[in-house]
């Protein structure tokens, strides 16, 4: 009897889970299901377009589908009954022996301060998905990059946003950053970027290598404030050393000033006629306040659940959350299980733990005749498969402009045209 496993979410956690599960038990039949017509989730739509080295991990995932017998089922939206979608989680559980939720956490965490809905304020998730040409992102909802930008947050996502807003068009060679994005950023001629962090510099969340990378772009002048805010600050701290490195840069021709401030919390966004024009920040003890003029503000303060799978209830009632066990035949991995902390490699280890738990449970699971994907293909005619992704991939690579690796299809309609309406040709 072959066990039928469905992993929901074709991003790093789901793919690592399939990889680890096959190492534990090569007899299982795995389907990785995604809401989008194409696989790889965060690797394709979250990792910055100029970090192709990080995206290279998708070669491991491609191998699952190309050599290891894992099936990709795209364009299938699974959620609780309350959220519509194509099929409910309960219905999916009825046709598989095991269902694993690995959909990550994609909503931007809100600051919950006044003015957050002003035009010009945007979450880092919304922004980076747009920069990665996610089919659900609409350019019309994005603020145009402004002359003065405030970035709230000090993690690696904030550094991604900072780097992309401060790099020059020609520096995107070898990336898959859409020219339309690079041109719109270049046209904005950003003059000043304020980066606001709540913690002291020595405890900021960014990795030093991310900060050093920003200094490689020409024409940037850095102001590092509040290093003395941290009583324990010392130049041996790699984060502080990286910031000091930036401060030493003397550009030949300054095009943009980047200011890092530490130990400040955002208080409110200030605007007129619905449009942002300043950010109000304060010291945690209220001893000092500042008003920073800005026409664009990016919040990069973490991610939360979009509630489409009823995550909160599932997590609260989980049988053994440490090993990913939510209930009978239902598991969670990655950020969906742990919350929004940790990098891609952290989710690899996480998926290995959950795979071990699943393999252990499979040994005692009663026999079943779960139909698996046959039932899905019998019910839906809009599903995409890995071959469809390969056609899209080939098209994107072939149609890219000079200096780019690919030109991403930006709408579901264009993807599905290539994915579903195939005319067989002989070559």
């Amino acid at each position, binding site marked *: 009897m072959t066990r039928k496993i469905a992993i929901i979410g074709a991003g790093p956690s789901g793919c*690592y889970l399939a*990889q680890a599960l096959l190492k534990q038990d090569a007899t299982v039949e795995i389907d990785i299901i995604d809401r989008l017509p194409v696989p790889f989730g965060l690797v394709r739509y979250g990792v910055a377009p100029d*970090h*192709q*080295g990080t995206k*290279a*991990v998708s*070669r*491991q995932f491609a*191998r699952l589908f190309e050599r290891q017998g894992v099936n990709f089922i795209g364009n299938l939206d699974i959620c609780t009954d309350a959220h519509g979608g194509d099929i409910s989680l309960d219905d999916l559980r009825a046709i598989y022996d095991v269902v694993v939720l690995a959909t990550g956490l994609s909503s931007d965490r809100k600051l919950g301060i006044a003015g957050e809905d002003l035009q010009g304020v945007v979450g880092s998730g919304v922004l980076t998905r747009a920069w990665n040409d996610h089919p659900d992102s609409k350019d019309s909802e994005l603020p145009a990059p402004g002359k003065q930008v405030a970035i709230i947050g000090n993690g690696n996502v904030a550094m991604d946003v900072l780097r992309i807003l401060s790099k020059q068009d020609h520096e995107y060679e*070898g990336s898959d950053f859409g020219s339309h994005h690079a041109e719109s950023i270049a046209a904005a001629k950003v003059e000043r970027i304020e980066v606001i962090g709540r913690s002291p510099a020595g405890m900021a969340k960014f*990795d*030093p*290598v991310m900060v*050093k*990378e920003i200094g490689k772009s020409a024409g940037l002048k850095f102001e590092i404030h509040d290093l003395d805010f941290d009583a324990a600050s010392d130049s041996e701290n*790699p984060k502080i050393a990286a910031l000091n490195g930036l401060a030493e840069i003397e550009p030949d021709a300054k095009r943009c000033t980047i200011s890092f401030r530490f130990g400040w919390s955002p208080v409110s966004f200030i605007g007129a006629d619905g449009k942002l024009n300043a950010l109000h920040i304060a010291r945690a003890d209220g001893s000092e306040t500042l008003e920073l003029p800005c026409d664009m503000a990016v919040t990069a303060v973490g991610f939360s659940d979009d509630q489409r799978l009823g995550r909160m209830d599932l997590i609260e009632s989980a049988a053994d959350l440490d090993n990913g066990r939510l209930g009978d035949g239902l598991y969670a991995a990655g950020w969906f299980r742990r919350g929004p902390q940790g990098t*891609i*490699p952290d989710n*690899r280890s996480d998926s290995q733990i959950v795979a071990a738990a699943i393999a252990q449970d499979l040994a005692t699971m009663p026999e079943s005749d779960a139909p698996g994907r046959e039932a899905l293909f019998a019910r839906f005619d809009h599903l995409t498969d890995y071959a469809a992704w390969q056609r899209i991939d080939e098209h994107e690579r072939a149609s890219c402009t000079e200096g780019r690796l690919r030109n991403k299809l930006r709408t579901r309609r264009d993807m599905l045209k290539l994915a579903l309406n195939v005319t067989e040709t002989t070559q």
Partner: protein
Amino acid sequence: MKINILYGTETGNSEMLCEDLESEFGDDHELEIMNLAEVDPADLDLSVFHVFVSSSYGDGELPASAKPFAEKLEGSDTDLAGLSFAIFGLGDSDYETFGHGSEQLADMLVKHNAKQVGPRVIHDAQGDDLAEDVAFPWFAERVAEAEAMSDAA
């Protein structure tokens, strides 16, 4: 020839490359693949040719699975005299710390009297080549050198 292949990995790319080496060379040689996380430097079989594959991570650091091995080796007086090894790196030339992970590991092994065979080559994630396309010819050359050395001995 018997060859132990040891990988240090963070995202799994080095592990995948070792699996590729096994499929490519496993019929001609007796290969054993091990995660460095599960290897104690004191237990290395000095008579066997060792091939290390390691990425770099973060700011030129060793990848997570190589760290315990490196920490044990560094803090010990383990003598690896007699051990021949070759080392292959995975890196990203976007960063100035390109290949530092494999470099650290190589230096550490040499410091403990192991003998490095051939050059340390680093696959660049920014390049057009796939890791296996660079690693396969490199591996074949290193194995030929190691065989010549053991024949001469």
